[in-house]
C-alpha cells in the first residue's frame, strides 16, 4: 500500500515537472486547474487550494494558500494574476511563482520562510476573459460573462466582433475615407497613427476593430461578449457608466469573493499584482497635494518610501529596464489594494516591449514618433518573430459600400504577452523578487529591556517594541481603517502583582521598518511577568521579566 502511494507520488512528480517544462503556450482554464491540483497533490503539507467562487461563465476562481500550520496567523503576501484578461502573462507569473517556490520547499531558506509566513496566490481573477485566447475566435478581452448592455439600447451583447477575413482572430480594419482620422506611420507604414490636424496633417483612414455594425446603430463592435472587467470594477477611483465597469463598484462575483476573503485576512502586509500597473520599475512619488483632500489620490510619504525601497530591490533582482510609464484605469485592482485595502501594494506587468536600436543592416532608422506597434514590429523582427502581423488585405464588406475596406494589423495579445518561451525566465526573476520581499516583512522584537528597583517590591520595566523588518507593521493609509489591526501589548501578571503605572493591555499604532516605540510600567510585587507583543502582520514576540 505504502509502495503504491510512493509510486503514485513519483508519477505525479514526474508529471508535474514534465508538465511545467513541456508547456508550449499560456494556460487555459483547464491547464491552470490541472497545475493547481498538481501542486496540492505534490506538496500537501504546504498547499491548500480552494475555489472562492464560480464565475457566471462557469469558471472557478482559485486561491492557493502556501504555508504551514495556522497560515492565517502568519504575516502574508497576496500574489494576484489575471487582473486583466488580456494579460495572460500575469496568470503564468502567479501560478509559476507558486510552482517555483514550492520546488524549493526542501531548501532551508524556503522551509524557514514557509514556517514564518504565508502566501495567498490568486492565479487568475479573469478566467472568463482569458479563455478568449483559447477560443475559436481569438480576441483581447477583459470582461467576464456578465451580460451587459454597453450601448444602453435595451439589448445585451448584440454587437460584438466579427471575423471578416476568417483567420480565427480579431485584428483591425481600415477604411479609406476622406473623414478618417488616421494616417500611415511614416516610420513603419504597417501601423496607423492619429493625424494631427493642428499640424495641418490630414487623415486618410477610418480605423476600427474587425467587425460589422451588427445592430445597425452606426457604432462598430460596441456591445459584444465580455461584460465587466475585474480591473475596472474595484471601488477605488471607480467610474460608473463606462463599458466594462459594472453598474456599481464591486458588483461582480469575482471581485466580491476575493474582497470577502482579503478583508478578513488581517495578516496580509503586502499585495503583489502581476497586471497592467507598474509601481515596481518606478515607485510612486510623494505628492503632499494628493493627500490634502478627503479623498486622497496619492501615497503617504512613509508608504511611498517603502515603495521606493521595494522598487530598488525589484530592479536589482529582475534586471528589467526601460519600463514604459503605465496609465492606471479607473477601478484598478492594485490601486484598490493600497487606497481601500490599506496594504502596501506593488504591481508590475512583468514584461513590456523591449527597446531595440535601429539595425542598419535592415536599413532601420531611429523612430520619429512613439508608436507601440512600430516598436513591437521592430523588436519582433530582431527576434525572428514573423507570424504576428497580418498584412492589410481588402475584404468585401457591405457596411461601407463603394469604399476600400482592408483587414489586417497586429495580432491580439502580442503587445502585453511575450512569446511563451520567454515566460519561464520572467517567472524565475519575479519569484526571486517575491522571496526578497518576504525578507523585508515587518517583524516584532522586544529590545532594550530594562528593570529598575524603584523601592522594595516596586519595579519599573522599560522596553522598546521594535519592528526589525524593513516594511511598516501597517501602512500610513491604513492608520484609521479598522481592517488593519494594531499591535496589542499585554503584560501577564499574577494575583500578587499590581500595576502602579502603565497598562495591562494596550494597542500600538504602526511602527515603521527599523523603528521602535518605548513602553514603561511600574509594577508592585515580586516574581516574574511575561510581556507579549502581537499583531497579525508581524507575528508575536514574548519575553519574561523578573521583578
Amino acid at each position, binding site marked *: 500500500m505504502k509502495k503504491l502511494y510512493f509510486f503514485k507520488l513519483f508519477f505525479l512528480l514526474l508529471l508535474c515537472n514534465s508538465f511545467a517544462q513541456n508547456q508550449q503556450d499560456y494556460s487555459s482554464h483547464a491547464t491552470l486547474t490541472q497545475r493547481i491540483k498538481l501542486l496540492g497533490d505534490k506538496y500537501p503539507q504546504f498547499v491548500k487550494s480552494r475555489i472562492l467562487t464560480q464565475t457566471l461563465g462557469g469558471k472557478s476562481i482559485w486561491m492557493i494558500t502556501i504555508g504551514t500550520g495556522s497560515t492565517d496567523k502568519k504575516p502574508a503576501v497576496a500574489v494576484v494574476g489575471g487582473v486583466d484578461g488580456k494579460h495572460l502573462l500575469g496568470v503564468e507569473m502567479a501560478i509559476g511563482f507558486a510552482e517555483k517556490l514550492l520546488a524549493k520547499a526542501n531548501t532551508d531558506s524556503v522551509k524557514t520562510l514557509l514556517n514564518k509566513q504565508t502566501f495567498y496566490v490568486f492565479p487568475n481573477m479573469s478566467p472568463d476573459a482569458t479563455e478568449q485566447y483559447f477560443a475559436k475566435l481569438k480576441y483581447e478581452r477583459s470582461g467576464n460573462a456578465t451580460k451587459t*448592455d454597453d450601448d*444602453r*439600447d*435595451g439589448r445585451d451583447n448584440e454587437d460584438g466582433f466579427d471575423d471578416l477575413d476568417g483567420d480565427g482572430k480579431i485584428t483591425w480594419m481600415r477604411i479609406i475615407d476622406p473623414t478618417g482620422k488616421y494616417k500611415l506611420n511614416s516610420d513603419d507604414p504597417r501601423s496607423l497613427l492619429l493625424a494631427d490636424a493642428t499640424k495641418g496633417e490630414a487623415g486618410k483612414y477610418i480605423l476600427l476593430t474587425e467587425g460589422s455594425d451588427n445592430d*445597425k*446603430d*452606426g457604432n462598430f463592435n460596441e456591445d459584444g461578449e465580455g461584460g465587466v472587467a475585474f480591473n475596472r470594477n474595484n*471601488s477605488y477611483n*471607480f467610474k*460608473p*457608466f463606462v463599458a466594462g465597469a459594472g*453598474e*456599481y*463598484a*464591486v*458588483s461582480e462575483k469575482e*471581485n*466580491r469573493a476575493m*474582497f*470577502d476573503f482579503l*478583508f478578513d485576512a*488581517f495578516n496580509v502586509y503586502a499585495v503583489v499584482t502581476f497586471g497592467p500597473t507598474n509601481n515596481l520599475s518606478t515607485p510612486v512619488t510623494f505628492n503632499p497635494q494628493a493627500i490634502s483632500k*478627503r*479623498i*486622497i489620490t496619492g501615497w503617504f510619504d512613509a508608504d511611498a518610501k517603502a515603495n521606493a525601497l521595494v522598487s530598488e530591490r525589484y530592479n536589482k533582482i529582475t534586471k528589467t529596464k526601460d519600463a514604459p510609464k503605465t496609465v492606471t484605469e479607473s477601478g484598478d485592482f492594485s490601486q484598490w489594494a493600497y*487606497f*481601500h485595502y*490599506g496594504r502596501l501594494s506593488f504591481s508590475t506587468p512583468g514584461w513590456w516591449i523591449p527597446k531595440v536600436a535601429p539595425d542598419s543592416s535592415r536599413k532601420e532608422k531611429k523612430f520619429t514618433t512613439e508608436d507601440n506597434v512600430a516598436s513591437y514590429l521592430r523588436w519582433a523582427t530582431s527576434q525572428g518573430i514573423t507570424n504576428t502581423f497580418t498584412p492589410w488585405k481588402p475584404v468585401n464588406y457591405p457596411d461601407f459600400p463603394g469604399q476600400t475596406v482592408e483587414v489586417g494589423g497586429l495580432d491580439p495579445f502580442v503587445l502585453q504577452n511575450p512569446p511563451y518561451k520567454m515566460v519561464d525566465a520572467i517567472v524565475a526573476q519575479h519569484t526571486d523578487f517575491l522571496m526578497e520581499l518576504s525578507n523585508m516583512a515587518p517583524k516584532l522584537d522586544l529590545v532594550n529591556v530594562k528593570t529598575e528597583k524603584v523601592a522594595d517590591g516596586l519595579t519599573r520595566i522599560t522596553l522598546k517594541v521594535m519592528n526589525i523588518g524593513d516594511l511598516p507593521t501597517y501602512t500610513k*493609509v*491604513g*492608520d*484609521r*481603517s*479598522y*481592517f*488593519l*489591526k*494594531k499591535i*496589542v501589548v499585554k503584560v501577564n501578571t499574577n494575583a500578587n502583582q499590581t500595576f502602579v503605572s502603565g*497598562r*495591562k*493591555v*494596550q*494597542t500600538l499604532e504602526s511602527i515603521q521598518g527599523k523603528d521602535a516605540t518605548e513602553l514603561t510600567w511600574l509594577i508592585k510585587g515580586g516574581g516574574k511577568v511575561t510581556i507579549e507583543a502581537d499583531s*497579525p502582520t508581524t507575528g508575536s514576540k514574548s519575553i519574561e521579566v523578573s521583578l
Partner: protein
Amino acid sequence: MRKNITLLAALIFCAGILKAQKAENILAAVGTPPNPKVQVSWNRYNDYAAITDICKKLAAAHPNLVKLESMGKSYQGKDLWVMTITDTKVGNADKKPAMYIDGNIHSNEIQGSEFALYTAWYLVEMYSTGNKTITGLLADKTFYIAPTINPDARDHFIHQANTAHSPRTGLVPIDNDRDGLTNEDGFDDLDGDGHIVMMRRKNVNGRYKVDPTDARRMIMIGNEEKGEYELLGSEGIDNDGDGFVNEDGEGAYDPNRDWGWNWQPNYIQSGAYKYPFSIPENRAIVDFVMKHPNIAAAQSYHNNGGMILRGPGALEDLDTYNAQDVRVYDALGKKGEEMLPGYKYLVVYKDLYSVFGGELDWFYGGRGIYTFSNELWTGYSMYNKADGEDSQGQLYTFDKDLLMKDAFVDWHPYKHPTYGDIEIGGFKKTYTRLHPGFLLESDAHRNMAFSVFHAYNTPKLSVGEIEVKEIGNGLTQVTAIVNNERMIPTHSSQDVKNNIEIPDIISLSGGTVLAGMVVTNRDMNFTIEQKLDPTNIKVANIPGNSFVTVRWIVKGGTKFTVNVSSKKGGLASKSN
C-alpha cells in the same frame, strides 16, 4: 383532540378579527378607513415578528392589492419583506411607474417601519372604502414597501437594553478598537432594568449640577460655580480590561454608508464597511431595485429632526445634481414642508453633513431615481412651535406635561466595579428620537400623504393628438403627441446624462413605416430623423408636465396605433 384544538384556535383567531366594531356603530372620521379589514394600533412599535404578522395579514386580507415577498435574508437570516402594492386588476405591477419606500436602515430609527407599514395599510384600506384618489393612484402606480431593511438590529434595539442611539449599526460583528476581538466591550445594563441610561457620580470637581427647575436634569455649571456631579457616560463597565468602557459594542458600521455611489472606505467615510453593498441587507435591496426599473421615486425613513432630505450627500457630488432635477426636487420638497409642520426641506451635504455612500445618493446618482430621506420626529411637535432657546429643557417639560414622566428612569444609586458609588438615570431609549404614542399615527399619516404626493407625480404618459395627413405619392404622414401629465420626467437629467435607463420607445403600427423622426419644432418643421428602425422611435426623455412630438412617413394603412413603452413612465396606447 388535536383537530378540536386547531378548530378552537381558528375560532379564537376569527373572533379577534370579527371583534372589529360593526360598521353601523361608527361614524367615519374623514381621511381614515373607518372599519379596516386589518386592525393595527398605530400608537406603539412592532418588533420583526409583529411586522411580519402585519404584512402577512395585509396580503391575506387584500390579495388583489398586496403581494408579499422576501428581497433576501438579513445577516441573521430574517426575511427582508417587501410588499408590492397596486391594483393588480389594472396593468402589470412591474410596468407601472413605482415608488419604493423603506424604513429602519438605522437600527435605532425604528419608527420608519411603522410609517412604511402605515402607508401600506392606509393605501389598501382606503382603496377598500372606494376612495377615488387612492383607487386611481393604485390603478396608475405601484408601491414597493419594505418596512424594515435592518430587522436583526431592530430586534436588538427593541428587545435588548439600549440607549436611544444604539445600535445604529446592523449586527455583522466589527472590531472597532482594532485589538483583534469583535463586540467584546458593549453597554451593560448594570441595574438590569432593561434600559441603558446615564451614569453620574458625586464629585465637587465635576462640571454638572442638578437643574433647580427639574431635579431629573443635569446642567453644566457656570464660571466660578461649584459643580456637584461628573457624568460618566452610558451604563457599562470595561468588559475587556483595556482601560476603556463600552468602546467595542454590537456591530458598529453604518448601513447608510454602504451604497454604491461615490463609496469611500471607512478611513475616509466613517461607518463604511468593506465595499459597496457589502452589508447583506443592502445587497438584497440593490438586487431588488435593479430588477425593478419601473421605480421612479423613493423614500427612505430615518429619524430625527424633522427634515425632508435630498442629495447630494457629499460636496464632491455637487455636479451630479443639475438645475432641471433640482427644480423637480424643490417642487416636491416645498410641498412636503407644507404637509409636514416643523419639517424642513434640506440638502444633505450643506445643511446636515457631507457623507459618502448614502442610500439616497445611490438611488439618484446610480439609478436616476428622485429620492428623499425623511428624518422623522421633530421637537416642533411637542408644543407645535419651533424649539425655543432651551430645546433640552423642553424634553423634560414635555415628558412631565404630556407623558406623565413615563420617558425617564429616575436616578438611583449603584455600586460600580470601577467607579464606585454612582447613580444611574436618564431618558429611556424610546424617547428623544422616537415619537410618543399619541403623535405616532398623526405623523405617519402626514408622511404617508407626502409619499402619495411624490408617487402621484411620477410620470403619467398618454398619447394625445394623432394627426394623419396624405402627402402625395401614396405616402401618409402620421404625427403623434405623447404627453407626460405629471411633474417627474421619464428620465431624470442624471439618467439622460449617463444613459442609465434605455430610451422611451414610441411605436407605430398600421401601414409600412418608411421613415421616422422626432419633431423638435412642429411649426417650423424641425425634425431629427431616426434612420435605424424608424417604426420604434427612441426618445431620450419625456419631460415632466410636457410632451414630445414624433412623426412617421408611412405607405398604406389608414388606421394607426401609437404605443408608448417607458421603463419609468409605464405604458400608453391610442389609435386614431
